[in-house]
């Protein structure tokens, strides 16, 4: 167990270092950082001074070490486009993205599990058939198209929901939240649906498949034979065992929700980090790109780690197998 955790931790550190190397490469070799920082009229001497001051003349490994040390403290230099520290810009926008991701993730999980259980239990019902067909469309529908269709129906035709922006926000310390105002909540509905729909279909299909598999097993037959109520068999015996893979997939999906937020944020002009990143790509704002990359990687790695450990904690069989085979 301990060896497993240590190995997993080392692996995570390795991944983060790789990502940092990529980010450092971006930062160092795309364009000339000096050109992007000084004005047109800077003299050669001034440029050289700045270069020496930033340590760009040091050996590359030293620079990389410095980059990692700075990154670990959340310092990524100044944004070329906005002339502000990257860390400030990102932290300002992080709450918007995290709120959106959290709400759509929870929504997808709750609705996905409910629909998955329903379609598994009534697998031949007409409603299940309709839900399953719709889910296939959900998988094929590109995220941005869902957003556009929602905007057309609810913002342009019915005019009940705002088409873009985040509405009014309330500041709680450094965190800004849209969850406490009416316009903020209204603005959240469409982006959350857009972002969560794909995850919803994924979770639903997964729960359904797992449920069907579990319902065929002997212990379910035995539970029925014991005369337990359907309710008890379905929810206490079957559902519990289907949730294991669901935990894994959902955990891994949190990361991709944050990545897919790039698209949703573009469609709805949602002022989060995704929108920041896509503008950074368009304007080649390298420090912002590098910082976003490291941030996302960190989120991914941490989630992966938690999921792995959780899996280990939840499923006793894993522990036995590992110690038994020594693998």
């Amino acid at each position, binding site marked *: 167990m301990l060896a497993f955790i240590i190995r997993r931790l080392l692996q995570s550190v390795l991944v983060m270092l790789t990502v940092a190397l990529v980010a450092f490469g971006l930062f160092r070799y*795309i364009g000339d950082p000096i050109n992007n920082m000084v004005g047109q009229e800077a003299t050669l001497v001034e440029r050289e001074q700045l270069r020496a001051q930033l340590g760009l003349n040091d050996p590359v490994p030293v620079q990389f070490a410095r980059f990692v040390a700075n990154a670990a403290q959340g310092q990524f230099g100044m944004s070329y486009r906005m002339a502000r520290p990257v860390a400030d810009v990102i932290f300002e926008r992080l709450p918007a993205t995290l709120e959106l991701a959290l709400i759509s993730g929870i929504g997808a999980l709750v609705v996905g599990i409910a629909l998955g259980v329903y379609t598994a239990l009534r697998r031949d019902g007409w409603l299940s058939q309709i839900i399953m067909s719709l889910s296939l469309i959900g998988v094929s529908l590109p995220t*941005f198209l869902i957003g*556009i269709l929602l905007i057309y129906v609810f913002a342009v035709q019915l005019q009940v929901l705002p088409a873009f922006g985040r509405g009014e926000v309330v500041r709680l310390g450094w965190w800004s939240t849209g969850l406490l105002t009416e316009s903020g909540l209204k603005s959240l509905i469409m982006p959350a649906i857009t972002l969560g729909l794909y995850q919803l279909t994924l979770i639903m299909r997964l729960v359904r498949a797992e449920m069907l598999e579990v319902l065929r097993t002997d212990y379910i037959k035995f539970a029925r034979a014991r005369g337990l109520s359907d309710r008890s068999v379905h929810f206490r015996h079957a559902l519990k065992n289907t949730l294991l893979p669901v935990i894994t997939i959902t955990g891994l999906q949190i990361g991709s929700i944050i990545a*897919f937020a790039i698209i949703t944020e573009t469609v709805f002009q949602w002022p989060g980090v995704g929108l920041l990143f896509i503008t950074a790509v368009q304007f080649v704002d390298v420090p912002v790109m590098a910082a976003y990359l490291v941030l*996302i990687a960190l989120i991914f790695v941490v989630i992966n780690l938690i999921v792995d450990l959780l899996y280990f904690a939840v499923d006793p069989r894993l522990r036995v197998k590992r110690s038994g085979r020594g693998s």
Partner: protein
Amino acid sequence: MNGKPIVSASSGIKTPSLFARIADNDLFYSFIRSPLTVAAAVVTLVIFAAALCAPLISPQNPFDPATLNLMEGFTPPMAPNAFTGNVFWLGTDAQGRDIFSAILYGSRVSLLVGFAAVGFAAVLGITLGLVSGYVGGWVDSLIMRIADVQLSFPAILIALLIFGVFKGIVPPSVQDKVAIYVLIAAIGLSDWVQYARTVRSSTLAEKNKEYVQAARVIGVPAPVILLRHILPNVMGPVLVIATIGLALAIILESTLSFLGVGVPPTQPSLGTLIRVGQDFLFSGEWWIVLFPGLTLLALALAVNLLGDWLRDALNPKLR
């Protein structure tokens, strides 16, 4: 295996004709038995054919400014234009460009990028997978480590990153010209892992079988063993991944183009058309965005359905 049909003289059975052999095939049987799959195949073929013959069947060349009439801008679908009286099936956009023609040319770009990206990803993934599985050792661990790291990031992020790098390195004057190749490379590079993993595991299973050992004993060089003997035996799952991968690539391409980092506006794909059309949504010109969107949806859905069917049909467990 030299191409001649093997006919057993004693039983006197003739080799059935090609048509009969297709009709007798398991795969064909399961295909015909599934109406949804047949419909998906028809839709896919229609879109492929329409995109291929776009110059022949489209009413105008939407990217030749000479054929556009500004007076015909914003003509609603199926309604005669107020000035010229021309009717456009699916309406026109701001410049009087026929949406139907734009869709035909747009699907051409989308499909081209989709196929090329899948081809690139497949060749790269299969090669690395074969090498990884056959050679083993540190080569194997290196390739699979890279695959693991990449797999933990969504494809869209990797593609965006590659694009960001490209924009930083390539001078703006030539960016538009090479953007489409970069797009293909970006999508391909973000999607090779699946092929590599599948091929590697099949290769591991195949390489200890007798036919491979026999080939090795008589001194067939490793590249030939890989390409001539192992590759044909690991292609089944690859076909499934490639089909579903095509749908994913088309969606990824349109997403990138929608985000404004894909193909240049002079060569619009379905995603670019949707990006442009989105601006007119608020002023009521819904057809500019809706029809390209529906085409994209139909294409992705049909290819996905084909992929789903292929996966089930090739999976002996489900027979």
